[in-house]
């Protein structure tokens, strides 16, 4: 390791604290989600009474589409920001925010349907318990994400976003991609697997 003697401090490069921080946060959140996903899988098909997933769950096509496409739009927004195209950034970022809000609306509608028409409450059976807690936890993360997106959107529209905020924007986009990835897991476990398991 004698190269140390010739090391130039000017060459000393370390990762960005914000990006590293958000990745660490994502790691922690993954651990949190893992437990809820495991709980869901564990109780899959073990409800003592109905309603069962296969009876009440419908594939959330529109919500899924909205969430997945928002990952693309946020990517476009980032590209615009790096290219210095501020109006383009605001536009794409705005679309992302709108898609996030639509997803929340969609989930809200789904829950309304389940609660008031299908009589599935969190206290109904273990399916209700694990379903609402897992999907709810994800929805909570979407809410936080949407708040962050809104914050950036407002700053951007007010012209307060500078080039040294690219790291903030990137960090938030990491988080948004993570929320998306979690949705893939939730989708697989809840809407693909559990509706196929007979009680």
């Amino acid at each position, binding site marked *: *390791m*004698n190269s*140390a*003697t010739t*090391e130039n*401090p000017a060459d*000393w490069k*370390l*990762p*960005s*604290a914000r990006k*590293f*921080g958000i990745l*660490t*946060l994502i*790691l*922690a*959140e993954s*651990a*949190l989600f*893992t*437990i*809820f996903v*495991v*709980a869901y899988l*564990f*109780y899959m098909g*073990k*409800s*003592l009474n109905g309603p069962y997933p296969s009876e009440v769950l419908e594939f959330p096509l529109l919500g899924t589409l909205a969430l997945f496409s928002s990952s693309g739009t946020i990517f476009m927004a980032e590209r615009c920001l790096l290219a210095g195209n501020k109006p383009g950034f605001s536009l794409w970022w705005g679309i992302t925010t709108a898609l996030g809000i639509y997803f929340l609306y969609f989930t809200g509608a789904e829950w309304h349907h389940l609660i008031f028409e299908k009589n599935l*409450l*969190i*206290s109904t*059976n*273990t399916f*209700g*318990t*694990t379903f*609402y*807690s897992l999907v709810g*936890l994800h929805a909570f993360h979407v809410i936080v994400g949407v708040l962050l997106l809104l914050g950036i959107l407002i700053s951007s529209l007010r012209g307060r976003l500078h080039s*040294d905020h690219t790291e903030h924007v990137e960090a938030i986009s990491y988080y948004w991609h993570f929320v998306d990835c979690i949705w893939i897991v939730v989708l697989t476990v809840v809407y693909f697997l559990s509706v196929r398991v007979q009680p």
Partner: protein
Amino acid sequence: MAQEIIIEENYRMPAPVHVGDEKGSLTRVIQQLVFTVDHKKLGLMYIAAGLLFFVIAGLLAGLIRMQLAFPNNHFLPPDVYNQSFTMHGTTMIFLVGMPMAFGFANYLVPLMIGARDMAFPRLNAFGFWVFFFSGLLLYFSYVGAPGLYAAGSAPDVGWFAYSPLTTKAFSRGHSTDYWTLSLLLGGIGSVATALNILVTVFCMRCPGMTLGRLPIFVWCMVVLSFLVILALPCLSACQIMISLDRYLGAKFFDTQAGGDAVLWQHFFWIFGHPEVYILIMPAFAITSEVIPVFSRKPIFGYPVMVAAVVAIAFISLGVWAHHMFCVGMVSLANAFFVTSTLLVSIPTGIKIFNWLATMYGGKLRFELPLIFCIAFLFQFLIAGLTGVMLAVAPFDWQLSDSYFVVAHFHYILIGGLLFTIFAGIYYWYPKAFGKLPNHKLGLWHFWLFAIGFHITFLPQHFLGFLGMPRRIYTYQSDRGWDEMNLLSTIGVAIQSAGILFFVYNLIYSYFWGKKSGDDPWDAWTLEWATTSPPPEYNFAKLPLVKSRRPLWDAKHPEDPDWKHE
């Protein structure tokens, strides 16, 4: 990190020059502590809060031991006893062990890696206050509803809170909610602080401080933070589930509605066992700094030591069910967890041997930190070996949930962790306050505490052999447990006397201690490169590091380390 430097013409708050050296009225000091975002102040506040809670939990332990001193004792009613051991365990783990670790990490990690502060100083303050308030919330249960009678509604379900004892049916009122909510809150603070430590180490190192040159202390803190990041969210998930059960009638652990009681145990111990290694990490960290400096040799086998810590953390994520050998898992699962648990003993053994080898051939200086670390080696050895015994599932069927387990983990957490915390406090006391701790008082503290400790906990191994289960508030006089329980209680009194000496030493040395100078121990890591106590900005100029022992290089320009590493 590319902010332009904004020097305001007239800044608002004149800064105190040295941390721990604030002048002015009490209100001003408090004001500065409340508003501070300085990692050193926050670190000291973490340690101070940890000591405060330590004393409270110690008093609870005293109550427990007084109740158990004699058979058929009526000193405490069963409810109060159950609340006492629940609060004792919860406090010691979440409000003493982890804050102490975070306190040391906060104070030392930026100094050791040559940084000016933590990566996110405000988040750091937030983390501390969330932890502190969560402790207050937990203790508010004593005075919260339904009132002061019957000791309020302090949690009484044990720190592990096995379901279904925590469901509404078996735990009425809000006592379990206090436990749940306070731990959920504390979890947020812990994750915030751990994240901060990780980011600081990976993104804020001074030039030349490569990962291969990090002090082992910092490595241990990195591993600790990773474990917190991975394990604490599992606990938070548990708390969310249990809160949903209790508030919204969810069925996670409702055994009447198809819920599974063992699932809670799995989830809890997935957090709970890494937690044990989170708690012992500071012990590894401090010992790995103290032993080399007071043996005057570099740590023996640095790469292996780092690899061992990482391996311990990695394996610790896969051993949780050794807490559950009795719940009736299939034999294959039992055998698997025996294997993974025994595997942990390999890197742990390597660490002990390497510490011994570090001392071998050195020139030992029996200062207070080294004395405490030697005691740590001895006690941690015992704790490790009793751990190996517990890992052998058939033996565990006899020993688990007996006093043998109590003795085992008190040897780890007191004989291991607490002794090194004392070593660390004595070692870095000059750093924080510029005064040397009093050696004579320290020796009194050491001997009283060590003797009291062994008198308290050694007999508990034998109580376990004699079939005394844990968490019983009383026992009948013909079970053969009488003498050893009495002895155990006597030991607590001796330990308390030791703690008095310790507290007195802290105060005495602060006011009347000998001035230490900047580098009293002739040490090698970067925290000693600045003044003691350090200025708010830590280093006027960020240092340039070329080896694992930067100060050795500075002190021995004729034979620096970097030529040989």
